[in-house]
């Protein structure tokens, strides 16, 4: 069993790295290799010829595209993200704090969303056609339809400005203190993100749970006298775990994308809002760094889910 597992891990990791490499070409192509005068586009029409020439040298635009890509990839591999064009400081210094802030959002949201989705999905599945099921399904249908920024703005309307004034409408975080220590600023962004990713996961858990509860082994477990609670939360849930994993990954990937809009709604100083401002400033090194970081994160999640999915499915696991 041990060796096939290692081989499985190695092939999946190699595949993930291959995808990351493909993404790096994509990122480089769209930010730097597209035809047109990059330096002129960044600086605008008012820049002097001298400024343009200097920037061109700084970005290495005098070299061939392949050379530029090789240099960029090499420094990326060494952990050198380059210098921000807008602020002149190193990209890493610029985004380090923001990466942590975004991570705080994503982790707290996941910690709330996953248990809640399992609880809601299971409750709805247990009393199919009941009141809980109707409420959960209705909410899912509505929330599933709405874009993240709209959910964010609606939470502001509800809890920060028009209906109740409980919480601050924006997250102007004191940069000297960690985001985690300023919880009142985190509540609304987290709420918006939870409402954004909860529906899909809940719907999926409900669907697989309905199937599991109808299956023979659940009937047998019940006939055997296993308590209802144990049937649902142990026997059935174990079989829901593997298929839910795929959906959980898409939820996390949605979350990574969702922070872009939600951080902007609340002016939350994270990676998403940094991406938006660097795209409008055409701050190419920052865009490159953030998109690569996001791609690496999502690919890592895909690989982990892939491997975990195999390990969680008994049939596949024993055939290894």
């Amino acid at each position: 069993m041990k060796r096939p597992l290692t081989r499985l891990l190695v092939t999946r990791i190699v595949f993930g790295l291959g995808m990351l490499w493909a993404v790096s070409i994509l990122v480089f192509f769209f930010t730097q290799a597209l035809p047109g005068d990059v330096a002129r586009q960044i600086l605008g029409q008012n820049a002097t010829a001298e400024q343009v020439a200097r920037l061109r040298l700084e970005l290495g635009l005098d070299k061939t595209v392949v050379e530029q890509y090789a240099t960029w990839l090499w420094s990326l591999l060494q952990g050198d993200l380059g210098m921000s064009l807008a602020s002149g400081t190193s990209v890493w210094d610029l985004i380090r704090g923001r990466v942590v802030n975004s991570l705080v959002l994503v982790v707290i949201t996941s910690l709330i969303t996953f248990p809640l989705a399992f609880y809601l999905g299971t409750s709805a599945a247990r009393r199919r056609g009941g009141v809980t099921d109707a409420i959960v399904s209705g909410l899912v249908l509505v929330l599933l339809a709405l874009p993240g920024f709209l959910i964010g703005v609606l939470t502001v309307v509800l809890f920060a400005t028009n209906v109740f004034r409980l919480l601050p409408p924006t997250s102007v975080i004191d940069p000297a203190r960690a985001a985690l220590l300023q919880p009142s600023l985190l509540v609304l962004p987290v709420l918006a993100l939870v409402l954004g990713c909860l529906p899909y996961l809940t719907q999926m858990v409900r669907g697989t749970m309905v199937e599991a509860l109808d299956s023979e082994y659940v009937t047998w477990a019940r006939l055997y006298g296993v308590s209802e609670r144990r049937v649902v939360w142990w026997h059935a849930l174990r079989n829901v775990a593997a298929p839910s994993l795929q959906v959980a990954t898409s939820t996390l990937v949605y979350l990574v994308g969702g922070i872009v809009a939600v951080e902007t709604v609340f002016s939350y100083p994270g990676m998403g809002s940094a991406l938006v401002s660097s795209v409008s400033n055409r701050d190419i090194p920052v865009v490159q760094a953030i998109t690569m970081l996001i791609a690496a994160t999502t690919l890592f999640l895909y690989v982990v889910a892939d491997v975990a999915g195999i390990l969680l499915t008994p049939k596949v696991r024993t055939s290894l």
Partner: protein
Amino acid sequence: MLPVAVIAFVGPFVSPHDPTDLLSSPYASPTRAYPLGTDTLGRDVLSQLLCGGLDLLLEAMIATLLGVGLAVILGMLLGTSSSRASGFALRVNDTLLALPQIVLALLVLTRIGPSVAALVLVVAAFHVPQTTRVIRAATLGVAQEDFVQSAEVIGMSRGRILFFEILPNITAPVFVELGIRLAISTVTLASLGYLGFTGAQTDWGRMVYENQGGLTIQPWAVLAPAAAIAVFLIGMNLISDGLARASGARGT
């Protein structure tokens, strides 16, 4: 959903004012002249609402038709060709999904700037991988049927088989996919509008962003476009949900 579509498509012709004219003081409350008040720059919210949906919905529809159309062709080809070739194509397909859609769109727009053509193409391209999978699965089911086999036997060309034998039998999943994808296109384009990357002067998404600061004084400037987007998308979701249930093309 229908009223919103009517507002979007007929709105620009009946709009009482130019949506970009600065008419009154910023954040004025609703009056007879400006039934929904004015926005952060003193523009008429009603006119903006009437004009701000056309581009959004048109672009979403074109992107959806392009993306799903391409995916239908690809999916049918992959569903009828050897498994190795289609396995490889699906893997390549998946590379596109490594970046969340909005991030991919932002990446593409970095250099090109707010361009409608680029926007539509990115949104369309993003639909291709997943829709191809769905259509391929549907095609695989149909390709085994007797009438397809007999068409092959009588020497019908591949193109004719795909178009006349297979396509008419996978219309249900195609329509379900169109519904789902139109909703996703609208979400992405509205979000990009909110972030200010669609280049449109009047845009429901952008209206929400611009007037967010005046929520306590003039909530209509935010609530009106927000409601338009929400009603359209919820309606869209109900329709594709109904279609999916009716055709049984997707699970419970």
